[in-house]
C-alpha cells in the first residue's frame, strides 16, 4: 500500500521526503520512549521490587539523562526545521518569469477559473471566465503556472492532492501559488476549508496536457468567448 497518492508536481516529492525524514526521527523517539516506559513496568513490578529507590531528580546529575534526551530532541527539531525551510521557501516564492497566470476563485460551491484573454494578461477585460459545476482547468505540462487565488463570499481552500498544494482563498485578498506539473492527466481540485452545505460537492478538475493541446483549448475558448471580447473592445 502506498502511503501517499501519486505525486505529479515538481515540489511534491520534497514534501513526501520531508514526511519520511520526520518519520525517521519520530520512530526512533517513539521506540526509545516505549522502551523507557515499559522497561521499568516489567522490571520494577512491586512483586519483584519491594521498596522503591528514593531519588528526587532535582540534582543536575539525576537530570542529565533527560537533558541529553532534550538536547538530542532539540537538534533533531532543528534538522527538521532547516530541511523544511528550503521546501517552504520554494513553494512560497513565486517564480518571477513570464509564466502563465490563471485565476482561481472559490465560490459556493464550485471553483471559477479565469484565463488571460488574447492579450496574454490576466485581470483585464478580455479574460475568459469559466464558472460552472465540474468544469475543467486546463494547464500545460512541465510549465510553471501561477494561480491567483481569490474567494467570493466565504473562505475556501484550494487543494490539489496530487500536487501536494493547498492554499486558503480569502475574500478580499489575493494569494498566489505556483505549480509545475510533470505528468499529463486529470486531477481533482477540492476545497479543504468548510464553506457551507455543499462543501463536499465542491470538486472541479485539473487537466494537465501538452502545450499544443493547451494552446488549442485556449483558442477554442477565445472563439466561444468572441462576442464578449469584441463588445469589450468596442467600449
Amino acid at each position: 500500500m502506498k502511503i501517499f497518492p501519486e505525486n505529479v508536481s515538481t515540489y511534491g516529492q520534497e514534501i513526501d521526503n520531508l514526511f519520511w525524514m520526520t518519520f525517521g526521527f519520530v520512530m526512533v523517539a517513539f521506540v526509545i520512549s516505549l522502551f523507557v516506559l515499559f522497561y521499568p513496568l516489567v522490571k520494577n513490578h512491586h512483586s519483584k521490587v519491594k521498596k522503591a529507590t528514593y531519588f528526587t531528580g532535582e540534582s543536575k546529575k539525576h537530570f542529565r539523562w533527560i537533558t541529553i534526551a532534550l538536547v538530542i530532541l532539540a537538534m533533531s527539531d532543528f534538522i527538521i526545521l532547516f530541511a523544511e525551510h528550503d521546501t517552504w521557501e520554494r513553494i512560497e516564492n513565486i517564480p518571477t518569469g513570464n509564466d502563465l497566470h490563471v485565476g482561481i476563485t472559490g465560490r459556493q460551491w464550485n471553483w471559477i477559473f479565469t484565463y488571460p484573454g488574447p492579450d496574454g494578461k490576466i485581470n483585464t477585460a478580455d479574460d475568459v471566465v469559466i464558472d460552472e459545476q465540474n468544469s475543467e482547468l486546463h494547464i500545460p505540462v512541465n510549465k510553471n503556472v501561477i494561480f491567483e487565488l481569490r474567494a467570493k463570499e466565504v473562505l475556501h481552500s484550494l487543494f490539489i492532492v496530487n500536487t501536494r498544494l493547498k492554499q486558503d482563498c480569502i475574500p478580499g485578498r489575493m494569494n498566489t501559488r505556483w505549480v509545475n506539473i510533470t505528468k499529463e492527466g486529470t486531477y481533482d481540485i477540492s476545497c479543504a476549508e468548510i464553506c457551507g452545505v455543499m462543501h463536499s460537492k465542491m470538486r472541479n478538475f485539473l487537466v494537465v496536457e501538452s502545450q499544443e493541446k493547451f494552446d488549442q483549448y485556449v483558442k477554442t475558448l477565445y472563439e466561444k468567448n468572441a462576442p464578449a471580447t469584441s463588445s469589450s473592445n468596442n467600449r
Partner: protein
Amino acid sequence: MSDTLHKKSFFRKYLFSTDHKVIGMQYTITGLFMAAVGGFLAYVFRYNLAYPGDHIPLFGELGAQQYNSFVTCHGMIMVFWVAMPILLAGFGNFLIPTMIGTDDMAFPILNMMSFWIFLLSTIVLLASFFVPGGAFGGGWTMYPPLSAGGYTNPNPDFFKAFFSGASLMILAVALEFVAMLMGGINFLVTTINKRTKGMTPFRIPLVVWFINIATIIFMFSVGPLVAGAVMLLFDITVGTGFYDPARGGDPVLFQHLFWFFGHPEVYVLLLPAVGAIGEILSVFSRKPLFAYKTIIYLALLSAILSVVVWAHHQFVAGIDPRMATFFSVGTIIISIPFAGIFLSYMATLWGGSIRFTVPMMWALGFIGTFLVGGLTGLFLGSNAFDIYAHDTYFVVAHFHYTLFPVVFFGFFAAFYFWFPKFVGKNLNPALGKIHFWCTTVFFNGTFFLLFFNGLGGQHRRINDFSLFSNVVKEPYITFEKIATISAICLILSQFIFLYNFVTSAVRGKKAVKNPWDANTIEWVADSPPPHGNFNPYPEVFRGPYDYSLPGEESDFIPQNVPHTNENIPVLKVKLSVS
C-alpha cells in the same frame, strides 16, 4: 463545626450549594452529560462516513447541513463543554481546596454563580439545535464570513439573526468563558491566599500547580477572543462589518484572535490532566515525582511558549511566509519542555515499586497514547509539510490522539484515583480494568488508521467522499469502516464505566481514608470530606512526594507528619540509582 452547615434542605445542599465539592460534582456531571451528547453526535457522523447515505440506527437520515452541524457541535462540545468543565473546573474545584488544606474556595458564592452561568451556556448551546436552520455548521473555529452568513445581508433582522445557530453558539461560548473566568479568579486567589500552615509554594502538589498555570494561560489568552466573539456576534445580529472584507474588515483577523486563544487552550486542557497523571504515577511507583521543581519550571516555560505558536493553524491562510517560519520554530520548540515533562514522568517509574492499580493503568495509557499525539505534532509543526497535511484526517487523528488521552484518559485516571476520597465508596477494580482495556483498544482502532487516510489526501468535514477519486478506494474505505465500528465500540464500552460509577456510588464498599497510601493532604480528610473538609486543619511539614524515604519503615509519609531527626537530611542520602 457548626451544625447548621449540615442541616440544609436538598436544594441548598445539592443545587444551590456553595460547597466546592458539590460544585465540582455539578461541573463534572454536566461535563459527562455533554460528553454523552458529543459522543452521540460523533456516532452519527462516523456512521455516515463509513456508510454514506444509509439509515443510521437511533437517528435516521443525515443531511449535509446536519452533518456539518454535528461535526461542528461535536468539536465545540468536546472542547468547551466537556474538557473545560471536567478538567479545569471539575479538577480545580475538587482538588485545589483539599490539596492545599482549606475549607472552601476563596469566593464560594462566585463559585456557585460560575457554575450557574456555565449551565446557562450549556442550555443556550443545546437550544441552538432547535432554532430554525439548526445548530451552527461552519466548523468549530467559527471562521467568518461563513459564520456571519457570508455577509449576504448587511441589515439583518435582529431577532431572526440572534436566534440562529451561529449567534447562539457564539453567545454560549462567551457565557462559558465568563463562567470559567469566574472560576479562574477563584482558583488563583484560593491557591495564593488560602493555603494551610506550612504549605509553601514548593510543597503544593503538582496538579494544583498545573491547574493554576492552566488558569493563568486561560485568563491571559481568552480576552482577545472574547472581544473577537463580541465583534462577530454584532456582525451577525446588527450588521456591522468587522470581518467583512467588502466593508473594510478582515476575516483573517478573527482567525488570529481565535487561535491566539485556541492554541493556548490546548495547554489549558493538557496541564490539569498531566498534573493529575503525575500524582498518580508517583503514588503507584512509591517514589517521589522525578524532578518536581524542574517540571514546574518546564510547565511555566511551555505556558509562555504556548502563546507564540498560534499561527501554525494558519500556515496555509496566506500569512506572511517569514511569520510562518517564526511560528514553525515556536511550534517545534514547544515540544522540548513537554518532552522534558514526559521524560521526567517516565523517569519516575525507574527504580520504583510499581503497582498496577486501575488509576495507574489509565496514567500509563495516557502516556503511551499521548506520545503518539505529541510526536505526530512534529510533522504538522513544520510548515512545509503542513501545506499538504492541513485540514486532512492526519490533523484529525493527531488532535484526537492528544485531546482524547488528555480529556478521557486524564479524567478516568483521576476519577478512579479520587473516587474513594470524594464519594467515599470503592469502585470495582475488575470493571475498571475491563473499561481501560476496551477504551484503549477501541480508541486506537478509531483513530490510528485515520493517519493513513489523511496522508492519502482525505480532507476534513466532508460528509460524502464519492466525488473524490483519490480517497474513494481501498484501503481507505475499509479504514473508515474499521474506525466507525471501533468508535461505536468505544462509546459502548463507556457503559461499563457508567455501570461501575452508579453501582459503586450506591452500594460500593465504604472507602478508608487513605486507600492508596498517598501523601498529599486530601487523604488526611475523611472520605468523603465533610463540609469544611478538615477538622482540625492539618499543618504541613514536608513536600508532597516523600515516598520510600530511606531509613523509614513506612514507604509513605503524609505531608502533615513532622520531620524526625533521621529523615531531615534528605538530599545527602547516598543513592544507588543515578
